[in-house]
């Protein structure tokens, strides 16, 4: 399947990933290469084969009691935040004109 710059831009938008023009050119070519390679799967007859999502081989999915536990202290968690305001994460102001919904 041919991969176009539009495909890469559309997927990057879905992935919330800003690409600069150099990224884009490089990615179109590389994505094309990998897609061509994985396309060999189309030759496998998988009619009636149940998809396998994970290989968990344990006898059953373990359950744990639903009991309250102490979380991490707020200050420790927020220590890695790019910006904070008291006990909150802070993001840049970005309400746009006319956005009142």
């Amino acid at each position, binding site marked *: 399947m041919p991969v176009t710059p539009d495909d890469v831009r559309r997927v990057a938008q879905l992935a919330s*990933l800003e690409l600069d023009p150099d990224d884009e050119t490089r990615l179109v070519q590389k994505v094309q290469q990998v897609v061509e390679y994985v396309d060999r799967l189309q030759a496998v007859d998988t009619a009636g084969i149940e998809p396998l999502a994970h*290989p968990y*081989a*344990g006898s059953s999915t373990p359950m744990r009691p639903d009991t309250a536990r102490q979380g991490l202290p707020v200050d420790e968690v927020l220590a*890695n935040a790019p910006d904070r305001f008291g006990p909150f994460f802070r993001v840049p102001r970005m309400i746009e004109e006319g956005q009142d919904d």
Partner: protein
Amino acid sequence: MTDRPLTELGVVETAEAVRRGRLRAEEVTRAHLDRIAAVDGRIRAFLHVTGEAALARAREIDEAVRRGADPGPLAGVPVAVKDNICTRGVPTTAASRMLQGFVPPYDATVIERLNAAGAIIIGKTNLDEFAMGSSTEHSAFQVTANPWDESRVPGGSSGGSAAAVAAGEAPAALGTDTGGSIRLPAAFCGVTGLKPTYGRVSRYGAIAFASSLDQIGPFARDARDTARLLAVLAGYDQRDSTSAQEPTADYEGALTGDVRGLKIGLPAEYFGEGVDSRVAQAVREAVAVLKDAGAQVVEVSLPYTSYTLPVYHLVATAEASSNLARYDGVRYGHRTSRRVTSHGDLIARSRGEGFGPEVKLRIILGTFALSAGYYDQYYGKAQQVRRLIKDDFERVLAQVDLLATPTAPTVAFPIGERADDPMAMYMADICTTGANLAGLPALSIPCGFLDGLPVGLQLIGRPFDEATLLRAADAYQRLTDHHLRRPALAAAGAAGGGA
């Protein structure tokens, strides 16, 4: 207690000497810090060295021994930890600008277990960014050199951990393995590396790449040391919902040296196209050693082998695109300093700046495979073929106790040779991704040298039967000496002081 340098002692030797008070954890730790100072400027295995904190911890271990307490089965053993495993108060970056400066407020379960067993976390090791790669060249910070030939890659993605163990900077290390990221660098660096069964070791605190594939495991210089480490790491953890409640085994006790009657399967597909014939030959010779010791060897077939790599790349990238969605520039990680006009901009720009080229490629591929119109054709198809691959392994492992294959199709390749060619790089994983897709335990041990570079033998076993893999690996190491060879670097570093 010995005239050998402390950096040449293994895990079991070190721990037993420290426990008996014949060796102080502090001198062991200091010897390894000195070694790191002497050689790591060339090897670049470490992103962070804990230094004083490691020495303070070592003194606690020594104090416990003086009081008559037993610090545990890893008493005084320095352990290097791949930098995608969270260490409380110690920077953890996944070798990504996205997480530069991130200091976890908690320890991964494996770190808690190592600490409880008396181990000393000596530093954090380099990797391909977010563990995506096979050479450690995709690190945002540095390229790690192979201690056997500094112009070559150590393999990846746990290249820093494997190189550290090979270079004598630590007797043991932790890695993660999603498609071969423990076994491939173990092979390229000539050390022992184990990817346990999916669910065997808790992943709580490991930075997620592909959740149906990722597994944490140990590196050491031989099977016995690896068994000691696995015994500490393995076991149920209620904080990881994929952690298995299966009983663990006496891994060291399983090392009887006896392989009589053990059935080893050689899958024909792992010895053909794409595999260097000299590597294939070295692996066959290694299997012959086990045969001479009484194992039975049979040819088997895994017909879907040629589909493992394409399935892996669809499954792994799809899961990665989902796992990496958490990096949004809001709660932790990189945030753009450019002016943004919407929340979407804030996220997209932060991600565009924070992620490196290989991570971007994989996010694009994974998002593509999951997107409307392509889901059935790519992700859905890959999941179906994944079942066929798992069925292949189940059928064959009903007939044999374990499989023997090359770990990698070649020996370590030169730095730069494949860095910009994704398909050439991905080919390094053709022998390893199957065990991840099927969730099976697999290990790599050195089984010879080609042009002075180590060759890896991979053993793949039944779910939760790491004991049989370790028994076979240990039996092989009792009969051979490849695992005892050290890179020439060892001599060069001995005189080193501070770099």
